[in-house]
């Protein structure tokens, strides 16, 4: 594996990987069930060389910005590497945002070059504040306006010239998934990324022969780190599927021999459902045998994971994931400990971590030695955590972090920066506590915290966790006073917003509700038709959802329990 300490920038490290692993496979891209593209590291280098040249012709150089708005595909990583080679600042923008939201971020970033794909470019109505635009995947004859077709960029050209960067120079401008308001562009340096990578590679090294399935948006910090920097540095293969549909994802998992994958909790839930359905279909005898094998596996993996043993014990489950899966990374939202446990017991460790854009990728991670499902792990080496203004009784307070991965600040916004950065410490806005073994436990976002009339602190995420698995598509907890402030209430309380509820939801929710302490109980249910607004990492955008509720529903819409 390439060691990050030897490099002063991401561009240098990534480019060195292309030379080090020449004959290894860098990319396999599937389009539905067909392999559409395969590139060795040497072939990837040729692509990057010519893209860097084309960028050079457009004046992309140190300090200039290159934005990418694109679903996961090799062209994303090739363009990003070329931008780094040119010393540019990469601006990864969420392809799941609406066209006008993407345009707003581009207007803020003002990139010299925007690299996007046809579907996204159409979504932006072929307009964006970028000096130049490249568009991939456009159908033949499509009118691209002033944009240039990516596929027609010159092929036989001299490699673009490399521009060196120092560790303290800016590497990326990443927009954090803030809820409304002005765009918050986080300035992350090469040092942030290289330090983060070193911390992670010590625990989860990727190597030649490993195959990472990239399905979380690459603009997201987790996929960027474990699905781009990690595989490159280890000579592993990045696998993409252009049609991200359940059947195609399953097919790729089996076909490509995936070893690593990052998922959001929702997908983990879908996987669990599938495994449980299969078990139910198999009948009681088979289930008993299966349970016995799971028990054996649990005993054998108490201290650490043992992939080969688990795979032979529980072959059918592992085969459903392709038979080669070593671990799943899970992040972006709260992970149900029972679910993480379920997978670990089957021999598929789920790595849970905690991080935020302002601190690059992760601050803490579960190092699997031994596996702990109940926490978000211990601080990585080089990360210091403090719990400030902790409650005497519970030990819960605000999480502050000091780490070489902490960002430089928000672009052009010293006031917001001063709010979160104090003497090198980052105020995360998350609430949690540290247990005696140094594991961090999160309870919620400080801004989501609800203080009851009785003075108790409640975290909606905590209550949502208690309702996990109920028969509905989505569920979120709100305080009535938050959604409809100022409305005179005689019985202000918590209520559950549910989308896609099945008939027995109410009864089941009431059952669980009774088990909660008084002050955590919900007093009503509001049925909602629309899917919840979510961030790239699938976290519910609470403020946005509250706004929709305020607009389209009223207190009377709540069915009292």
């Amino acid at each position, binding site marked *: 594996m390439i060691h990050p300490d030897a490099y002063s920038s991401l561009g240098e490290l990534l480019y060195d990987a292309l030379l080090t692993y020449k004959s290894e496979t860098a990319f396999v891209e599937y*389009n*539905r069930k067909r392999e559409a593209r395969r590139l060795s590291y040497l072939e990837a280098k040729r692509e990057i060389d010519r893209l860097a040249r084309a960028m050079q012709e457009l004046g992309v150089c140190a300090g200039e910005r290159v934005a990418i708005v694109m679903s996961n595909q090799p062209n994303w990583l090739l363009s990003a590497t070329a931008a780094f080679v040119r010393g540019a600042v990469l601006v990864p923008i969420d392809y799941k945002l609406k066209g006008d939201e993407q345009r707003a971020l581009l207007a803020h970033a003002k990139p010299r070059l925007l690299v996007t794909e*046809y*579907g*996204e470019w*159409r*979504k932006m109505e072929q307009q964006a504040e970028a000096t130049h635009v490249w568009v991939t*995947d456009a159908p033949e004859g499509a009118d691209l306006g002033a944009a240039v077709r990516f596929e027609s960029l010159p092929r036989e050209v001299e490699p673009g010239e490399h521009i060196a960067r120092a560790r303290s120079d800016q590497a990326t401008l990443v927009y954090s998934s803030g809820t409304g308001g002005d765009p918050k562009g986080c300035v992350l340096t090469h040092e942030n990324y290289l330090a983060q990578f070193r911390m992670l590679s010590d625990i989860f090294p990727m190597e030649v022969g490993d195959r990472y399935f990239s399905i979380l948006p690459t603009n997201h910090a987790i996929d960027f780190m474990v699905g781009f920097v990690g595989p490159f540095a280890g000579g592993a293969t990045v696998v993409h599927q252009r*049609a*991200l*549909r*359940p*059947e*195609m994802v399953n097919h790729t998992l089996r076909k490509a021999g995936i070893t690593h994958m990052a998922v959001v909790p929702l997908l983990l839930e879908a996987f669990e459902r599938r495994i449980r359905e299969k078990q139910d279909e198999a009948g009681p005898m088979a289930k008993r045998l299966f349970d016995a094998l799971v028990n054996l596996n649990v005993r054998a993996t108490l201290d650490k994971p043992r992939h080969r043993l688990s795979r032979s014990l529980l072959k059918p489950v592992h085969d459903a994931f392709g038979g080669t899966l070593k671990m799943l990374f899970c992040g972006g939202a709260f992970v149900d400990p029972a679910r993480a446990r379920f997978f670990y017991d089957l021999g598929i460790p789920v790595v849970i971590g905690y991080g935020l854009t302002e601190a690059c990728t992760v601050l803490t991670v579960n190092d699997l030695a031994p596996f702990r499902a109940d926490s978000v792990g211990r601080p990585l080496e080089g990360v210091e955590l403090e719990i400030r203004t902790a409650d005497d009784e519970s030990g819960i307070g605000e999480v502050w972090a000091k780490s070489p991965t902490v960002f430089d600040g928000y672009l052009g916004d010293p006031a917001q920066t001063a709010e979160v950065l104090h003497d090198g410490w980052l105020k995360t806005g998350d609430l949690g506590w540290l247990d005696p073994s140094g594991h961090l436990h999160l309870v919620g976002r400080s801004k989501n915290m609800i203080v009851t009339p009785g003075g108790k602190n409640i975290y909606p995420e905590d209550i949502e966790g208690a309702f996990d698995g109920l028969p509905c*598509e989505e569920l979120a907890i709100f305080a009535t006073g938050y959604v409809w402030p100022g409305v005179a209430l005689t019985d202000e309380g918590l209520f559950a917003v549910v989308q*896609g509820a099945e008939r027995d939801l109410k009864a089941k929710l009431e059952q669980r509700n009774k088990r909660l302490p008084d002050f955590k109980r919900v007093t009503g249910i509001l049925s909602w038709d629309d*899917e919840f607004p979510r961030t790239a990492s699938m976290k519910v955008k609470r403020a946005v959802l509250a706004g929709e509720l305020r607009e389209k529903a009223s207190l009377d819409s709540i069915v009292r329990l």
Partner: protein
Amino acid sequence: MTAAQNLVPRLLELAARRFDQDTSGLAPEDDLFEKLGIDSYQAMELLTDLEEEFEVEIPDYEIQGVNTFGGLAEVISRRL
């Protein structure tokens, strides 16, 4: 009849089969999410069936904002 209209009966039949419903209850102007009681995840599964049936590839972005059977038929007919 337009090319898209010609596709509708086959499309309804496929949708009915996948989600275990009766075609007679489905009409081109119906909201497919509402009528079939499906979410966007399941709509993607239907899209995969349609691609196989009509031997076309429809990029996911093509069906953004499409919510009727007729609209879906329109998207497919453009790719035939």
